[in-house]
C-alpha cells in the first residue's frame, strides 16, 4: 500500500520534471524556429547558440514581483493559473510514451484526455473575469468561444480512429496501427485534427484570444511573475499534448524500426511540434468572424463527412 503510494508519487513527480524540461526546450525551439523563419539568429549570447537563455529567462520570470491588482477577485485570480496548469498536467497521467512508460493506462484514455483538457476553458474564463479588466474579459470570451467551437470538429475527427481501433485505450489504439499508421487511411481526419487542435491550444493562426495588437495579451494581461508563468507553461504543455495525441492516434505512437520506442515517439511528436511552429510563423492570424465561420462552415461539415464515410466503410468492409 505505502510502497504503491510512493511509486505513484514518484511517477507524478517524474511527469512534472519531464513537463518542465519539455517546456524549456519547446520555448527555446520556438524562439529559434521563429527567428530562422524571419532570417534572424534568435538567442545567441547565453551559452552555445543561446542554449542557456531559457534557464536565465526562467529564473527571471520566477523572481519577478508577483503583482495582484487592487480590484481583482483575489481568490479566483489566484486559482485560475493553478487550474490552468493542473488541467494541462492531468492529461499526462494517461499518455503512453512507450508500452511501459505510462503512469496509468486507462481504458477510456482518449475520453479522459478530452475531459480534463476541457477544464482549461474554465481557468481562462476565471482569469478573464477575475482580472476586472475589459481586455482580459474579452480575451476570456474569445478563447472560450473558440475552444468550445473547435472541440466539435476535434472530437469528430478522432472518432474514426476510435472506430477502427475499436477502443478508447491509447495503448490499444497504437497497437492497432502495427501494419499501417492511421494517417494513411485517415489523411483528412489527421488534417482536421491538427487544425482543430491548433485552435484548441490557441496557436497562431488561431491565437485570437491573445491577439497582442488588439487585446494587449488577452485573458492573462493582469498576470505577472509566477502566475503568468503558469499560464505560459500550460500553453506549451498543451502544445506537446496535442502533438503527442496526434502521434498516438495517427502516426502509430512509439512504433518504428531499430530505435527504442520512446525515441520514436519523441521524434514523431517533435516533428508535429515543428509543423505547428512552421504554421504559426508562416500564416497571418484569422479574424474572429473568419475563425468561427471556418470552424462551422468548413471544418465541421468535412469532419462529419469523414466520420460518415469511415463508418460506412467499416460497416461494409
Amino acid at each position, binding site marked *: 500500500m505505502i510502497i504503491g503510494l510512493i511509486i505513484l508519487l514518484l511517477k507524478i513527480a517524474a511527469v512534472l520534471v519531464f513537463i518542465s524540461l519539455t517546456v524549456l526546450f519547446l520555448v527555446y525551439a520556438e524562439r529559434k524556429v521563429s527567428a530562422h523563419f524571419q532570417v534572424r539568429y534568435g538567442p545567441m549570447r547565453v551559452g552555445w547558440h543561446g542554449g542557456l537563455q531559457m534557464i536565465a529567462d526562467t529564473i527571471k520570470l520566477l523572481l519577478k514581483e508577483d503583482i495582484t491588482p487592487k480590484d481583482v477577485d483575489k481568490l479566483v485570480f489566484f486559482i485560475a493559473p493553478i487550474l490552468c496548469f493542473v488541467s494541462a498536467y492531468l492529461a499526462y497521467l494517461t499518455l503512453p510514451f512507450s508500452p511501459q512508460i505510462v503512469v496509468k493506462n486507462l*481504458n477510456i484514455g482518449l*475520453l479522459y484526455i478530452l*475531459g480534463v483538457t476541457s477544464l482549461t476553458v*474554465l481557468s481562462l474564463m476565471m482569469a478573464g473575469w477575475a482580472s476586472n479588466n475589459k481586455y482580459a474579459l474579452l480575451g476570456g470570451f474569445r478563447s472560450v468561444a473558440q475552444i468550445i467551437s473547435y472541440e466539435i470538429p476535434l472530437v469528430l475527427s478522432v472518432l474514426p480512429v476510435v472506430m477502427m481501433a475499436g477502443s478508447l485505450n491509447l495503448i490499444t489504439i497504437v497497437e492497432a496501427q502495427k501494419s499501417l499508421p492511421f494517417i494513411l487511411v485517415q489523411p483528412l481526419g489527421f488534417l482536421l485534427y491538427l487544425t482543430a487542435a491548433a485552435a484548441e491550444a490557441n496557436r497562431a493562426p488561431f491565437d485570437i484570444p491573445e491577439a497582442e495588437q488588439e487585446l494587449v495579451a488577452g485573458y492573462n494581461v493582469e498576470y505577472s511573475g509566477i502566475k503568468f508563468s503558469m499560464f505560459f507553461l500550460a500553453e506549451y504543455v498543451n502544445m506537446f499534448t496535442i502533438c503527442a495525441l496526434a502521434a498516438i492516434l495517427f502516426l502509430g505512437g512509439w512504433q518504428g524500426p531499430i530505435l527504442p520506442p520512446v525515441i520514436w515517439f519523441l521524434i514523431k511528436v517533435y516533428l508535429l511540434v515543428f509543423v505547428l511552429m512552421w504554421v504559426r510563423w508562416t500564416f497571418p492570424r484569422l479574424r474572429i468572424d473568419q475563425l468561427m465561420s471556418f470552424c462551422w462552415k468548413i471544418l465541421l461539415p468535412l469532419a462529419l463527412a469523414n466520420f460518415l464515410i469511415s463508418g460506412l466503410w467499416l460497416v461494409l468492409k
Partner: protein
Amino acid sequence: MIFYFLAVTLILSAILVVTLKNIFHCALFLIVAILAIAGLYFHLQAPFLGVVQLIIYIGAIMVLILFAIMLTSRISDRLLQTASRQSIPALLAVIVFILLALKSLDKTPLPAHIGKNFDPILDLGRALMTAYVLPFEVVSLLLLVALVGAIALARKD
C-alpha cells in the same frame, strides 16, 4: 476516507452555491460540486461515468452558465436574494425527492454485481443502439428542437 472527503466537499460547495451572494462565485462552487461528483464516480470504479460527467457538465453546461453570467451586463453589481419565502413548495419538493430516492434505493440490489467482461463503453453503446434506441432518439430529437427553438427565439429579424 477519500469518499468522506469528497462527500463533505460536495455538500459544503452545494450549500455555498445557494448561499453566496455573488452569482459568479455561486457558479464556481457549482463546478466544485460537479468535480466532487466526478471524483465520487472515479472512486466508485466508474471512470467512464466520471469522465462523461466532466465533459458534459463542466465542458458544456457550466461553460454555458458562466457565459450567460459574464454576458449579462452589470450582473455582479446586483446582490442575489438568497432567502425565499416559498418554503412549502420547497418542503414538498424535498419530500418527493427523498421518497423517490428511498424507493429507487430499495429497488436496487446492493452491492450490485456486474459481469466479468463488462465493458462500459461497448455495453452502453450496444444498449443505446438496441434496447433503448427509441428513448435515445427521442432525447436527441428533443435536444434538436431545443436548439432550433433557441435560435428562433434569439433571431432579431
